[in-house]
């Protein structure tokens, strides 16, 4: 894109502004334009930075109500409301003074749709830039969420849903020789091995019915803040990002002879709630944080643009080989119903020792609120269900409390469309299906379709983790939850 030429009008306008600035300094003194004064007035106007995911600056609110439409409308969370201040509508918290005191799950949909910058995603770019320039880090390791690899193209004039993983790998090479790139697909494969094993064990013993996934940090936040009685149903598995992060801070140092503190680990996610998940006390390996920074897709785009990297025009590259051989099942984690589908493929294998007759569970695909599938093994039926959007989970929770929930396995994604509609992605003007299309196309064309067929992962299990849900795996890959009910 060519640089914008300055028109005569802009030239004059610029001159007028500069003149005004100069006049203001001469009339009001230097303080008028000094950053200290600006910062003081900001805090006076009440910027709420207590959340790990988003920041609110009410002074910038134009009262359009889009955040309320998302929060109380589509997401059904009821955290934000429209209040009236000085006779004008303004976005406000409904039951709390600050975000940290509210039941906000950090899904980031409000920030995604805010047109005026009154609600913004908390920026981690400065941390990442500092790490890129910090010679103490021997390696800067990047991982890219399944959906992020299909969404980032939109920012570089590539049609929605196209697989950009090969371009992303080249882009990371361009950031410097210390950088390593992995796909979170691998973390998703580990998650399926752990989660499916845990589910199969519970299913056999009749425990944790229904068994609920814990991949979505927005959903985990919702359980801890609003429905802590669901904690016994939650899988103890960490999310794919944290699982791969745990290996990056334990297995990778062992392989390369570095110490975990010499590795800086950035995760590029479609999600803002991941920024909270990263900071949880449990998400450490031997006292070292598993993920050092979480960038949203939009932030990663900003990073590339600031370095002058045009993703679309880069040559194809490959991810690093330590965590490769990823499956299509790992990739479809980016779509609602994907975790459920991937888990069913492997659960069938774990229960019967055979591949399932049909690998594609099409009834779990699409953008409906609740989608179901049934898998029959030796006369026993596993009833699986995918809940799309946190607003649809309320009825499900009521059913569980009443004991009328028929499902054995429930996947919950807080945002509509799953990760593909996450709070850290650009706005979409239709059905999230257009992003799912790319994920399922990748799955259909991939050689490995199930997580248990990921050969690199099998080797790592044999060499390092022994087996799914073993003691080593429990320490590294599983976590616990506590009630934070407000």
């Amino acid at each position, binding site marked *: *894109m060519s640089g914008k030429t300055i028109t005569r009008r802009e030239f004059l306008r610029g001159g007028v502004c500069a003149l005004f600035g100069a006049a203001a300094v001469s009339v009001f003194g230097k303080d008028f334009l000094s950053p200290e004064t600006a910062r003081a007035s900001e805090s006076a106007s009440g910027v709420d930075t207590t959340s790990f995911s988003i920041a609110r600056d009410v002074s910038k609110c134009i009262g359009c109500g889009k955040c309320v439409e998302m929060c109380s409308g589509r997401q059904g969370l009821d955290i934000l409301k429209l209040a009236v201040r000085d006779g004008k509508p303004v976005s406000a918290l409904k039951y709390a003074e600050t975000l940290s005191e509210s039941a906000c799950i950090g899904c980031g949909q409000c920030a995604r749709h805010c047109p005026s910058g009154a609600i913004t995603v908390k920026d981690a770019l400065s941390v990442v830039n500092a790490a890129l320039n910090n010679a103490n880090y021997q390696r800067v390791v990047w991982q890219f969420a399944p959906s992020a690899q299909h969404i980032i193209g*939109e920012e570089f004039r590539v049609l929605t849903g196209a697989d950009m993983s090969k371009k992303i790998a080249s882009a990371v090479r361009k950031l410097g020789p210390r950088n390593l790139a992995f796909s979170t697909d691998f973390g998703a494969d580990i998650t399926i091995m752990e989660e499916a094993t845990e589910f199969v064990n519970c299913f056999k013993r009749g425990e944790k019915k229904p068994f609920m996934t814990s991949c979505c940090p927005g959903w985990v936040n919702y359980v801890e803040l609003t429905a802590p009685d669901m904690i016994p149903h939650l899988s103890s598995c960490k999310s794919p990002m944290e699982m791969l992060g745990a290996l990056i801070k334990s297995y990778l140092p062992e392989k390369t002879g570095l110490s975990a503190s010499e590795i800086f680990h950035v995760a590029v996610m479609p999600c803002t709630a991941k920024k909270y998940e990263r900071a949880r006390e449990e998400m450490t390996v031997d006292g070292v944080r598993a993920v050092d920074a979480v960038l949203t897709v939009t932030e990663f785009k900003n990073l590339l643009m600031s370095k002058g990297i045009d993703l679309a025009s880069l040559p194809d590259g490959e991810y690093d080989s330590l965590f490769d051989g990823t499956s299509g099942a790992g990739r479809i984690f980016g779509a609602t119903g994907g975790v459920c589908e991937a888990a069913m493929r492997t659960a069938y294998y774990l229960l019967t020792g055979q591949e399932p007759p049909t690998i594609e569970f099409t009834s779990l695909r699409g953008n409906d609120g609740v989608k179901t599938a049934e898998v029959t093994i030796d006369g026993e039926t596993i009833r699986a269900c995918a809940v799309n959007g946190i607003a649809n989970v309320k009825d499900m929770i009521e059913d569980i409390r009443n004991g009328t929930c028929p499902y054995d396995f429930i996947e919950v994604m807080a945002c509509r469309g799953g990760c593909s509609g996450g709070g850290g992605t650009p706005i979409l003007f239709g059905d999230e299906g257009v992003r799912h299309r790319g994920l399922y196309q990748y799955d259909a064309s991939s050689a490995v379709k199930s997580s248990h067929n990921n050969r690199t992962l099998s080797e790592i299990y044999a060499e390092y983790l022994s087996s799914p849900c073993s003691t080593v795996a429990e320490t590294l890959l599983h976590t616990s939850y506590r009630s934070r009910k407000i």
Partner: protein
Amino acid sequence: MRRVFYIAALVCLLVATLSHVTALPVSAADGDAVILIDGKQASEYAEISKGAHTVAARSEAEIVCVAVYENGQFKAASFHAPLTYDFPDSGAEIALFCLDSAFRPLRDAVRVRQGAAFAKLVYSGAAVCYDLYNEDYPDFEDYTVRLKVVTDNGKIADIREIAGYRLNTQTPTNDVNAGLLADAAKTIPGVIITKQSANIAEADAVTGATCSSDAIARAVADALTHTPEPYEESSGEASAPIADGVYSGSAHCLTGYLNYMVDVDVTVKDGVVTEIQDRTLKTPMSSNDKVLYSVAWRSVSKGIAKAKMKADAFQSADGVTGATVSTAGINAAVRNALKTRSAATKESGDLYAPEGISLYARVYPVVAVKNNRIANIRIVPGKESDTEALEAFAGEIVASQSVAGLTWPDAIQDDAFSIANLTDQILYGKGVLK
């Protein structure tokens, strides 16, 4: 240091001639434009429409322009600025403007004389209206004024078909500009005809529409430099009165935040506009605009039903203060319907527009789908988007029934990508695009 600006010549044919004319003495009192042709004062010179001549002019900004003028056409030019003159980036533009204004009376005279052989001639001309100070009108954008000048026995007899267009397009300019131009067009043609010169004084310009007034004058000057066409009685004459029927038209509401499209069906009975009906599509509107639009619609439709305005002379119906943009959009849609006189047809098929609860795209498509195929794509443009090029691009999508494998044209690549990607996003979920 001597500041000498050589502007890339308009047509660099006679560069060699330039080297000796740069030494031409050009002197005049401050503030007067003086033109020398081959070293003589322009007023002493009878005929420059034949042969090659060197011409020098000194503008009010003390910029000296030296040009080669061959058979009535500029061939090459250079510009000299005084030492103290600090050129802004757009110096070239200003210098060209200076040259243009310096030559205006001269060309005026020459061209009118040329046309004297014919009884009546029609000249077409254009000029760009640049407004330097438009803080009062945030919607103002530079636009082109096009008009026709009718001369009768070498005298300016009429100035007609004055219309504003977006720069470099045939698309009408926005309603604010059109209003300003209409204001100017009420008086300026009369002034020019009385004076028999396109050199209007500052005092003649219409207050509040200074730039548009000036643009009309410059367009007249421009017209007179072009080859005229013979006058035909029918040109510019009103055609048959508007027959009874229902006509449809559309207009864009450029709110500057979230643009949308207004569609109306206009019923004409006995030559009078009796009723308008809203066909405004499922284009996304901000919640604010929805309210403003519905208020404006109620008021305008009531006003039209009451006023019983003649269809031929429909200008606008009164709207509501505070809903200016919506009112202007509805009025423009009615005007367009009556102007194009296209019979109202229900747009075939289902219509889809981006349905995100907020839309920040500069441009977006409204797609008509029939029998699971894309029947039509309409472009709702942003403030400075090239609608014609985008419509051509949308035509490619309709022809191929797919957005895959398209390339984004260089000049409009961002907008073209938006159109393709948004079409993909809104149609994929409907099963139209795979």
